[in-house]
């Protein structure tokens, strides 16, 4: 507790004890917005788990602050032209926290685990395409795929594709005791309370780490996270809701970090319903909604207007030009489509305050083109059951549904395929518009069939153009990722994909 610590310190000073300037351990404390589920990213779908693990368990390839691929445990990599073979050169001189050397065998153990679908791990599906893992020498790993998959490099960079110590995989429950190669060593996890990490003195990059301990607290109440930051109980707050950012800004000792995200918020239009089969209606909906105003209302202005189905920081993004707001045009399109007097729609959404604000705003905007919207906010679990477990495309009740998708691989494939390809129809993945277009499906498939970046870029450009044209959803906003940080702290920041990094944390004194 801050007060006692200070009091103890001042008591010590007043007593004039002959202590030299005490060497204070440099501790980093971080408040996260969710409780931690598992320390094993292979078996988690949660950003909070990926974030905490990122300092302990490293990947072959990682992202920099702008979602560009950078080497971590691999030094270089390449894919074959047919996108079926991917080769990784590994960093030498790395050891796991338990002393096991890091080599191709270790990577193979992890990749095999991910590829083994019988493990029932949450992320097994990422490696479903992997056929075999080869280790031609101690520091080379080769992935042979069953079929071409152009997005494999980004998949390997996915925050869940970490490398555990093979010994730990065999001997420990890695869900609770992660052993990796990272700058920090896992020390303890008190579920619901905290995770404590300690400095790894033998880290392969001798320049790092620069703090002695890192402690993560799950703090689900946003206002509490902010209070902890302002009272210096934590130095970093991951996920700062827009409405609380002012409190942080107004404090001299703290700052607000803001980066554009890669989560695109949409209102999917159920294209199996007659009213949305007409492209003019779908375009009219996009034109009727004022996205700038949406961002102001929902995110207090902290967001950007989408101009493509995917966000600018997603790999292979290509701008299609924002729809803009044009009520005249929207009304004209509705009239052309025979819906001058509008119609009724049912919009499903989320029942938290942000979700309800979204729904209400949309309802108001659509009324301008005479569309009468019934909004249905749903509790998280109920929503996920109705939308992702038991839904049947033919009988789905909703006309429109709110949703946000973030491609955790940072690659266009993991946004376009789940949300806009025919294979992604809910409940399978996330295509809630039941959108199906041959050109798009073909382009997505083409892009996966090659390892050549230019060819992939071209294919994704085609897909983005077609999707934008067809407007299977109302594109609403790309939400900025915000965080709060104590001034003087660097190397801790949030990523566009919603995770955070802290491996290079450092205090400037």
């Amino acid at each position: 507790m801050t007060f006692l610590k200070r009091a103890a310190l001042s008591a010590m000073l007043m007593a004039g004890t002959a202590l030299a300037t005490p060497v204070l351990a440099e501790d980093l404390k971080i408040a996260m917005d969710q409780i931690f589920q598992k320390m094993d990213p292979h078996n988690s779908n949660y950003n909070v788990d990926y974030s905490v693990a990122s300092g302990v368990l490293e990947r072959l390839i990682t992202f920099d602050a702008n979602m560009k691929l950078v080497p971590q445990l691999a030094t270089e990599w390449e894919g074959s032209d047919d996108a079926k073979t991917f080769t990784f050169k590994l960093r030498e001189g790395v050891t796991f926290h338990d002393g096991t050397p890091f080599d191709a065998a270790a990577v193979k153990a992890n990749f095999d685990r991910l590829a083994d679908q019988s493990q029932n791990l949450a992320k097994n599906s990422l490696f479903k395409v992997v056929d075999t893992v080869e280790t031609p020498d101690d520091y080379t790993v080769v992935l042979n795929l069953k079929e071409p998959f152009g997005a494999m490099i980004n998949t390997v960079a996915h925050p869940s594709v970490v490398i555990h110590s093979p010994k730990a995989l065999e001997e420990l429950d890695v869900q609770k005791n992660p052993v990796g190669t990272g700058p920090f060593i896992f020390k303890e996890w008190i579920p619901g309370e905290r995770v404590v990490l300690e400095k790894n003195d033998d880290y392969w990059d001798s320049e790092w780490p620069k703090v002695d301990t890192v402690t993560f607290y799950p703090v689900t109440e946003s206002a509490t996270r902010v209070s902890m930051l302002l009272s210096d109980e934590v130095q970093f707050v991951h996920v700062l809701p827009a409405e609380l950012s002012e409190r942080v800004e107004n404090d001299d000792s703290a700052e607000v970090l803001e980066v554009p995200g890669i989560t695109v918020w949409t209102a999917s239009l159920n294209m199996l319903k007659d009213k949305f089969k007409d492209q003019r209606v779908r375009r009219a909906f996009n034109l009727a909604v004022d996205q700038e105003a949406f961002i102001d209302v929902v995110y207090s202005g902290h967001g950007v207007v989408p101009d493509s189905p995917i966000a600018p920081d997603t790999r292979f993004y290509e701008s299609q030009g924002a729809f803009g707001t044009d009520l005249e045009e929207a009304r004209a399109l509705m009239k052309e489509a025979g819906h001058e007097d509008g119609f009724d729609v049912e919009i499903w959404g989320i029942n938290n305050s942000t979700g309800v604000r979204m729904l209400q705003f949309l309802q108001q905007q659509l009324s301008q083109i005479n569309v009468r919207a019934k909004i249905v906010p749903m509790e998280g679990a109920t929503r996920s059951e109705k939308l992702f477990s038991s839904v049947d495309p033919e009988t789905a009740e909703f006309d429109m549904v709110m949703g946000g998708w973030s491609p955790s691989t940072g690659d266009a494939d993991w946004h376009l395929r789940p949300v806009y390809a025919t294979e992604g129809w809910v409940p399978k993945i996330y295509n809630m518009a039941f959108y199906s277009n041959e050109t798009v499906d073909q382009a997505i498939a083409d892009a996966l069939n090659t390892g050549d970046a230019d060819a992939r870029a071209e294919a994704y450009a085609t897909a983005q153009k077609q999707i934008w044209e067809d407007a299977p959803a109302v594109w609403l906003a790309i939400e900025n990722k915000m965080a709060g940080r104590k001034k003087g702290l660097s190397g801790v920041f949030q990523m566009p994909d919603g995770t955070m990094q802290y491996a290079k944390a450092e205090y400037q004194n």
Partner: protein
Amino acid sequence: MLNYFLRRLAAMVPVLFLISIFVFLFIHALPGDPARLLAGETATQAEVESIRRALNLDQPLIWQYVDFVANLVTLDLGNSLRTGEPVSQMIARAFWPTFWLSICALVWSVLFGLVAGVISAVRRGSPGDHAGMFLAVSGISMPNFWLGLLLMQYFSVHLGWLGTSGFDEPSDLILPSLTLGAGVAAVMARFTRSAVIDVAREDFIRTARAKGLRERIVIWKHALRNALIPVVTMAGLQFGFLLGGSIVVEKVFRWPGLGSLLLDAINFRDYAVVQSEIMLFSLQFLLINLAVDMLYGFINPAIRYK
């Protein structure tokens, strides 16, 4: 009396059994699929199915219930669907923070409520009484969430005297227990007030005055002791609720207690944890109820146990 106590304990078994059926059915009737929730919104259907198999959620309900009851009987509450941790361990860990928080909140609020209630009763109709009862109504109606943040802002952020949240040392109990107890204190004050006012009309109070006893003794000894029965009943009830863990206060103060555990468990439809916690709450309530009944006999020897 021991006999009465043992019989009451035995009577709890069928009650708990009925509760177990009710709880099981209720939880499984809730919409929401734990496998899907664990997988996360962006998971593919294949991912969801693999989780479902891993958790045995594809078994028929009746077998899941039999498992649940078998677990209860052996006091092994199974494993969390979400983390795989033994539920008994999770509950054991969350129990004490909630317990101490409840005790602190209860102790201060009951003491405060008693004193405020008695003073209000004695000065019935005075401005002090009205002010006190206004405070009490405010205490009941003020949202815990708001009060908690207010206290945190002032004492932790502004003055820096206390930690904002978490439970690392005893002083961390202060703010959450103040927040949690505010409503209870208000309820206790109102209850005590009306109980004392009722007792003050009793003949034996007139007798006490006719003996020439000091007013202080008349009220604090003769009236209060008799007013304790409804007050203790209410305190017991409140304690039962407190021990369930306050979801709001625990969330605001990052309290690693039963309320937080339940909230997470419900959000993820973590059946094993929700079921076990609700069984625990039921048991706590029954035990507190029994304790209160036994306490009656100490407060008022005229109460007999049958």
